[in-house]
């Protein structure tokens, strides 16, 4: 049974909070409600929604609706959610050039975990990573499922500039920089995929619910 707490915030937000854990099943509940609401978006007066690990933030237009009406809709949809089949998660293969100039920290990860560089690549490419949410920067995926054998602490001193497309590890997380930015992740490789391109038809490559597989090229 889906448990959700609904909290109206100020004049135009409703926050739907599920169980506060980072867990694929809880994240699935968030995404399901998000997808259901997308079907009702304009009639319900919903302006924007942000699905995160275990919470859905709903922003609505107070001229069209109020938190009570949006709450009723959310309750109805949660009751129906058992009957809904979530669309198949997209499986996205991301080609990565591991090591070398664009993966300068791969040996740090290897040494920290008592592995060879090839073993790091094998373990990283064997994983299937769920995109829980996007945030921090446009197109930046929060990915779960990094093998504990690859967990490595962040850099002590972050780099002032990390190239977009860099693939990295920070603690128990793995991810891909969607834009150039400062960063403290251990960089193990690089992909040519543009995770964010503001002028493209589809400006962001990934979406919550995608399953990422890295492929060494």
């Amino acid at each position, binding site marked *: 049974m889906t448990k959700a707490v609904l909290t109206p915030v*100020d004049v135009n937000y409703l926050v739907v909070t599920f169980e506060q854990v980072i867990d694929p099943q809880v994240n699935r509940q968030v995404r399901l409600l998000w997808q259901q609401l997308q079907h009702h978006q304009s009639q319900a007066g919903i302006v924007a929604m942000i699905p995160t690990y275990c919470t859905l933030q709903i922003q609505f237009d107070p001229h069209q609706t109020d938190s009570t009406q949006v709450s009723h809709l959310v309750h109805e949809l949660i009751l129906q959610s058992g009957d809904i089949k979530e669309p198949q998660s997209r499986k996205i293969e991301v080609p990565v050039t591991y090591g070398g100039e664009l993966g300068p920290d791969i040996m740090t990860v290897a040494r920290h975990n008592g592995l060879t560089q090839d073993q790091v690549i094998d373990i990283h490419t064997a994983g299937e990573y769920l995109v829980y949410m996007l945030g921090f920067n446009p197109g930046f995926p929060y990915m779960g499922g990094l093998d504990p054998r690859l967990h490595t602490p962040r850099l002590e001193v972050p780099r002032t500039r990390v190239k977009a497309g860099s693939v990295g590890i920070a603690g128990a997380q793995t991810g891909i920089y969607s834009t150039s930015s400062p960063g403290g992740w251990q960089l193990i490789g690089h992909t040519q995929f543009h995770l964010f391109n503001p002028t493209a038809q589809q400006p962001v490559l990934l979406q919550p619910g995608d399953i990422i597989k890295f492929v060494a090229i």
Partner: protein
Amino acid sequence: MGITIKEAGFLTTVQDQGREEYQHLGVPVAGAVDTFALRVGNLLLGNNPHSAGLECTLVGPTIIFNSPTVFALTGAEMEAQLNGYDIAMWTTWVACAGDVLRLGIALTGLRTYITVAGGIDTPLVLGSRAAYLPLHLGAKTGRLLAGDALPLGTFAGPQHFNRSIIAHPLVREYQRPTLDGVVKVRITPGPQHHYFSAASHADLTKAVFSVDNNSDRMGIRFQGAKIAPLNDESLISDGIPLGAMQISRDGTPIVMMADRQPTGGYPKIAVVTAVDVPLLAQCRPGTHVKFQWISREDALDLFYQKERELAQLKAWVQGQVAPLRAYRITVATKLFQVSIQEK
């Protein structure tokens, strides 16, 4: 055609009401930090409410009008001259080809908005013309420079020049004098209100805070008191509403504004209520601020009241007969506009 930037000013960017629909992709909303001032400027001109204007921070730009149009200045009280003569804010002015508008220092407040009939017509990026500087999104990659030329949209409606609302209650209230120089900002409970003790809730209203230098379009930091969280638990990243007050690890309150990242992991004790976010947009570093808790019901009352007033203002503007001609009269250093209309 359009306008040309002669001098850029301190930080001048093209802004509209931002891009709301890409937050789930990690794209910040951006847009005018003072949405009220931009909105009123567009309203006075009879513009589409999504029209873009120029957000001028602290020291404004000098611009040249390349073709005749109508413009308005709203927001922070800024020194303003048209062709060397002082002009009033909150008023729509005719500009002729070759006219020079020079904005100087903001006398009070922080951000002044130049709106022009038809709006600034730069290309839409992700549905909006709003500049987002950290990613160089927007016209001319964001920050405007001397020499930049900006096109204006075509404007089909009646030309609303010589509309002045300097003495209107909406503007009076917006400029309301602070009590003892302290700006009163009303807050409602944030998504993590319950993460904090009643003592912490009270601490937020007892102190007089001041706006820290390290404040910008993304967020406003406050000094004056530290707010203790209830526990040390990390918050799992969730959405950040506009005006949300995060408490950072060292207890500093930070209110998240237009350029905020859509998601984050710091607990949000409060949200600055919607009608007071524009007030914060005008608080420069050093400004003293006091927070006051209000209920969501009161917040809704304030919001709908303001919307009614804006609707009345819009009706008044639309109900005015468009003037036939405008004349300029200069008296000493000041410019006045006189219009003639059909009876």
